């Protein structure tokens, strides 16, 4: 499939994806990043624009459950995919267990890196795998927190993973 931009003419493409459980269909410009579309067209401003070059992780979203930097991901590539932003994490006004863990551990200062970190932690929890301390740090290493509160962030992630394991253990077989 070719989307062409002849001189001066903006090339458009129809983009159908699911965002936070809702089917979305819009016409996009092929030059837009997924970040541009989520923030500016769909108003999911919980997706933060930080470095714009995939270093800081503030723009992290889950794409079919996998964390990606939406700033260096073409919006066109999201066609047919399921996107989760921080707006899709709480359900009916109820914080998710991962969000609760971040609150409990005080893992938030200015909050700019928080959406991305909550999403990466959510991906870890939903994978159903267990992670060592070093593996948790590795899985969160694509995020920069300039308040330098990493210790509490790692503790929050470990708490969320622990709680999720407990929930599985206690669930009726």
């Amino acid at each position, binding site marked *: 499939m*070719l989307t062409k*931009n002849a001189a001066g003419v903006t*090339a458009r493409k129809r983009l159908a994806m699911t965002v936070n459980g809702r089917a979305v269909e819009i016409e996009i410009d092929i030059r837009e990043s997924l970040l541009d579309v989520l923030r500016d067209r769909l108003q999911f401003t919980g997706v933060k624009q930080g470095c714009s070059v*995939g270093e800081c992780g503030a723009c992290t979203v889950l794409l079919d459950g996998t964390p990606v930097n939406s*700033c260096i*991901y073409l919006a066109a*590539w999201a066609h047919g995919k399921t996107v989760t932003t921080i707006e899709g994490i709480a359900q009916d006004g109820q914080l998710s267990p991962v969000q609760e863990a971040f609150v409990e551990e005080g893992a938030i200062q200015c909050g700019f890196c928080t959406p991305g970190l909550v999403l990466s932690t959510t991906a870890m929890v939903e994978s159903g795998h267990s992670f060592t301390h070093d593996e948790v740090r590795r899985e969160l290493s*694509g995020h920069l927190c300039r308040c330098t509160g990493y210790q509490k962030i790692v503790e929050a992630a470990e708490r969320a993973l622990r709680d999720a394991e407990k929930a599985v253990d206690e669930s009726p077989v």
Partner: protein
Amino acid sequence: MFDICELHEPETLLEAKRIFHDNPDLKVIAGGTDVLIRMQHGSLGGAGLLSLRSIRELEEIQMLGDGTLSIGAMAPFTKIFQDDLVQKHVPVLSEAAVSMGGPQVRNVATIGGNLCNGAVSADSASTLFALDALLKLETLDGERIIPMGDFYAGPGKVNLGPGELLVAILIPREGYEGMGGRYIKYAMRKAMDIATLGVAVVCKVRDNRFAELRIGLGVAAPVPIRCFEAEAYAKGREITLECVQEIARLAVKPSRPRTSWRASKDYREHLIEVLAQRAVAEAVKRAGGCCAH
């Protein structure tokens, strides 16, 4: 917004080769974690893109009938890191894959893109070089299979002809069977950093002698290199601390590191010797040998 003038998104390899044949000036984009950053920085603009992201067949990792491990060029680093075949047969490649970037980057960045960028710091390149990997390149008219050493043409330059795509990385059985390996990436941070130096070692041990040793270096010269003199020296020799030290000294010889803001030439030479020694010692251990006195 990215400075893109057209975007092709073929869903099959054949379709991609056809488009590239008719439009050889297109810029190929795989994971986009380099191409889109270059656009963001303004060093690449006005490009027509040939995106390979929709071609599922290029993501496959499989064992071929003759024992060759075939890794699709579009396999993302996370997949390579976690893949059962890779972990079983070439764990050193898994080790190199997880050292690249951070999780979000590894989830989209591909091994083919890493190689085709031609960056001397590419974490997969020195490891694949040490594994004697071959590259399968295809055009609409045919295919060729070349060794890693013939792929690099200079800093940031690779030998891809007009309309030619890297399709798969092939690691023949002789490249990995019975080998222990170790990749050491030296960088300022443990994640999201570019290697100051990368050392990949694989070796086979028999009766505590080197049956075979291969060393690949990244950021030690304008392109990834092998240390053939050190490898030849090792062959058949008893594995002792002195022997490993001599191998490490010889590993410095083919290098031509430069001074950059990351590290000076002298420091890089020092790193090659120290890290080669550590990597060889660990590879020996993983191959079932021992390099104590």
